[in-house]
């Protein structure tokens, strides 16, 4: 078991003929992910990745032809909103958006569009997900992970890799690693994923990686306190970030005294979550 993706997940890559799209689609295929189709308007009929993956003009045609049930978005930021609608209307169950730099207003509209539609969005500005040994949808390097019992949910891509790496050093594998992205408005939040980990029999313990900005970590803490039976270890990045300065992620900013690392750490600790001082401490805290 795992959450969100497994070996049966059939992925269509929107923007597969772009440099990043093609590189990572190839990496995914090499990892064993079922990359069944690509979409680039105007390039339908082409074949990529050693002539194994057909390219379509529309997600609709791609889904009809290949039965894709998951879409991975690599298109430039200005086309992301439309790409999300297109994937949703084509009937995939999961949309993973890697693209960073999407305007907040676009995402607010997209989120409103998806509300009550039978589809989940992960991202944007996220590394995607990895179910070690089964499937990777996104850009998490596959070779650094292995199957196991730890579920990871994170706002940050590269920090997730660090944590996976640290777990590996400690001999711990992962059930599924989920990057929810660091943007202020994201399709999936901590609580959505925590709920899935709580229900997933393979996952025994969970690592939550947050960062300054917003109050998603505080809400997650409340959820954990009220609903989680599995142990959770946390890490919050940005303890040394100065207020008022945006730390790369559109969401990572301490504004008006809100969203500080100290507040988040306190909230998590109050919910019984052990909080690591740096990523490599995490395996030890998992016990």
């Amino acid at each position, binding site marked *: 078991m795992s959450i969100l993706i497994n070996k049966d997940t059939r992925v269509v890559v929107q923007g597969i003929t772009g440099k990043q799209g093609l590189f990572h689609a190839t990496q995914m295929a090499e990892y064993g992910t079922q990359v069944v189709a690509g979409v680039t308007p105007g390039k339908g009929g082409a074949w990529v990745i050693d002539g194994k993956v057909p390219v379509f003009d529309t997600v609709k045609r791609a889904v009809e032809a290949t039965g894709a049930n998951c879409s991975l978005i690599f298109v430039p930021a200005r086309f992301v909103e439309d790409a999300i609608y297109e994937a949703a209307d084509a009937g995939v169950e999961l949309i993973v958006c890697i693209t960073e730099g999407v305007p907040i207003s676009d995402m607010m509209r997209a989120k409103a569009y998806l509300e009550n539609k039978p589809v989940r969005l992960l991202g944007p500005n996220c590394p995607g997900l990895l179910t070690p040994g089964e499937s990777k949808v996104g*850009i998490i390097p596959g070779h650094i992970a292995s199957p196991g019992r730890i579920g990871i949910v994170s706002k940050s*891509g590269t920090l997730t890799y660090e944590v996976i790496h640290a777990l590996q050093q400690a001999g711990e594998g992962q059930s599924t690693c989920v990057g929810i992205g660091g943007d202020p408005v994201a399709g999936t939040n901590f609580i959505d994923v925590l709920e899935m980990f709580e229900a997933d029999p393979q996952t025994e313990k969970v690592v939550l990686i947050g960062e300054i900005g917003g109050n998603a970590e505080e809400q997650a803490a409340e959820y954990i306190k009220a609903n989680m039976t599995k142990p959770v270890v946390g890490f919050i990045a940005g303890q040394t970030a100065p207020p008022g300065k945006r730390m790369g992620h559109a969401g990572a900013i301490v504004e008006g005294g809100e969203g500080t690392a100290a507040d988040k750490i306190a909230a998590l600790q109050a919910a019984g979550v052990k909080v690591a001082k740096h990523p490599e401490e995490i395996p030890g805290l998992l016990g």
Partner: protein
Amino acid sequence: MKLHEYQSKRLFAKYGVPIPEGEVAETPAEARAIAEKIGGRVVVKSQVLVGGRGKAGGVKLANDAAEAEQLASQILGMDIKGLPVRKVLIDPASNIKEEIYLGITNDRAAGMPVMICSAAGGVDIEEVAKTDPDKIKREHIDPVFGLRGYQIRNLASGIDLPRALWKQFGKIAAGLHQTFKNTDATLAEINPLIIDADGELLAVDGKIDMDDNALYRHPDLEAMRDPDEDEESEKEAREHDLAYIQLDGNIGCMVNGAGLAMGTMDIVNFFGGSPANFLDIGGGAGPEKVAAAMKIILSDSKVKALLINIFGGITRCDDVATGILEAMKLVDVNVPMVVRLVGTNEEEGRALLEGSDMITATSLAEAAQKAVAAAAAA
């Protein structure tokens, strides 16, 4: 990106919000001329992109044009929280009867903008929200259906605005929303929106923050950027599409990914060091970008050691390694370098760097500790 008060107010005015008929001066003489044109008492307001101008002495009342000139000469050239004052706004002084707060910002949790209104304007609204939350009225704005007339009436009714002002308030609230929406703002606020002695509403101060990710849609607004807003090095970083923020420490950090960059700063701090900057080279950075990033970090003379921490995902370690080598040809690297490469193409990357003069590390803790030690030894 932040806009100055005068820029924000002019945008509001474009959407029908009444503002004082002021003008901007860059010299005391200009300030005098404007004050003469306005006549009577004027306010001389420093235009800097930082809060607390008033307390810092950057906002003053002048009784006449001569005094305006004199105050302008004091204020122009002041340094407010590290930012030089290069412009002052000369506005006619208003007779303030009431001060209202009216603003729009994004509510992340709700995933939509929220219009906030309070009869207790003119002060720090976050303070009011904490001490007297009932005085703050909120209406969430659906991102597709927009701000509706009844929502504005809910706010007017909620703050007990005199009914005679509802129509005017409705236009101002709608105008503020139009400004917010059409500029892709993350914050648009009027504080205070005053009721003056004639019983009219007037936006005497204004503020707009824009969503940097949406600036491509607004070249006209991008052109309003104040070059003084950021450090030189931050500007250069932006030109190379790098997220860079200069800090006060002595360990330069070059990291990929915002979270890991923050995490790296944190661990440097945890091991007793002091980070000189936040720098995220972003996803999929190629050699040119890496070289530019190194140049920018090393242009800070405080930097005593350089810590490069790359965990390859979308960024490829071999690209980073190539970038480091390129940069070392262009930049004189006169501080110790600690390099850690893990992830996508890590072996290719490490192979490329073999033989170069640098300290390598495998774990993050090891890399941080080595960088702290190197900086301390410098």
